[in-house]
């Protein structure tokens, strides 16, 4: 099978990479770029642990084939901190205790960022709907919702 050379921007950096058609964007980002923050939970788009922002839209990278991302701008969890300062959503997750085992956290934070980008003043119900595609087996969600609402305050 032939490899396809694709161009993409990951967290602001331009790259060219040769990918196999059956690689997912998630595998490619984790294994070719060693950005292992995004996780594979279910591999079927149900758990949200692989969530990334591609061309401004939150997606599950386990369901996107790598060649489909040709020409795209991708933001992963590694791209949120600026000059060593955590993104307000990340800081709020720490302060609210929204992290336990941490496996769902990168996806949760990307979903929360995407929500706040489009809706800076969400209600609790907006947050619940915005994170409906992200499963957490530890926290019971309450602390996560608190973190997202606190991040909205922090961003102002």
């Amino acid at each position, binding site marked *: 099978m032939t490899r396809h050379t694709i161009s993409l921007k990951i967290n602001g950096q331009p790259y060219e990479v040769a990918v196999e058609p059956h690689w*997912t964007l998630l595998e490619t980002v984790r294994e070719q770029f060693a950005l292992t923050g995004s996780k594979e939970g279910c591999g079927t788009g149900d758990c949200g642990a692989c969530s990334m922002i591609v061309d401004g839209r939150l997606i599950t990278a386990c369901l996107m084939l790598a060649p489909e991302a040709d020409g795209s701008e991708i933001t992963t969890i590694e791209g949120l901190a600026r000059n060593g300062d955590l993104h307000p959503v990340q800081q709020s997750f720490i302060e609210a205790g929204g992290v336990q085992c941490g496996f769902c956290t990168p996806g949760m934070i990307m979903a929360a960022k995407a929500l706040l980008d489009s809706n800076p003043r969400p209600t609790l119900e907006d947050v619940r709907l*915005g994170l409906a595609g992200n499963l957490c087996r530890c926290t019971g969600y309450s602390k996560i919702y608190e973190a997202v609402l606190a991040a909205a305050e922090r961003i102002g």
Partner: protein
Amino acid sequence: MRWHYGRSAPLPRFEYFAPQSLTEALTLLQERGQGGRALAGGTDLVVQVKEGVKIPIPSYLVSLRRIPELRGIDFSARDGLRIGATATMAEIAESPLIRERYSALADGAEIVGSIQTMNMATVGGNVCNAAPSADTAPPLLAHEAVAVVAGPQGERELPLEEFWLGPNQTALQPGELLRELRLPAPPANTGGVYVRRTPRKQMDIAVIGVAVLLTLGQGDRIERARIALGAVAPTPVRARKAEAALEGKAASEALFAEAAETAASEASPIDDIRGSAEFRRHLVRVTTERCLLEAVQRARTA
């Protein structure tokens, strides 16, 4: 089992093509022949290829992502609505035009899976996957959408009732692609609504779904009624007897209760993991009644 602990099923190998035009895509399908699949948002197809149970593993995929003819949402009062096959659920749900004139479709598109699903999944994929429970299906059926199919011999148009043949089966022939959906402009004073029933609010599959369109005339007289049901038959279906029972009569709660009863009698559901046939018929009755009440409100303010 092909998958192993700690990692979901990896994808099998296949060839991948990303044509830049509809003609190029049709030529590819023609030349490569059987064994290929068209790839749109991937939220159904990639899962099915990973699981390798529901469909045979494709030897090649043709990506529809870079084909301009398949994109976009346009409306004109004369021609109605055109939705390109690769318009996403998010694009449909966010379109002010669809919210205003085709509100049942906006209702359906905005509850498909998660935010992530809505950003990837396409209306063409939802229609071609042909699940009886698809959330855009009853609204499209109620709006009398026509599928425009492109193939080696040119284009043909099929009403969705002829496009869906059964669960996961469509009238698409080898080498054909769904190009777009066309929905006639609804008459003035039309209100539309879609409601599905699920145990979870999001990330769930309809136990049943009901779409209703009502067009009101003088004195709350129902000029036109369209009712479509999801997940109660091998394909999404119209409830024509219930529609006929409404047309020409003045809107009233008693009339709606009676029509909802008729709609339930037109459903032919099965027992499965999501609900018994009896439960589904009950849900159709209750949901149709509530949809009629909501549709008449929306028609009054249309």
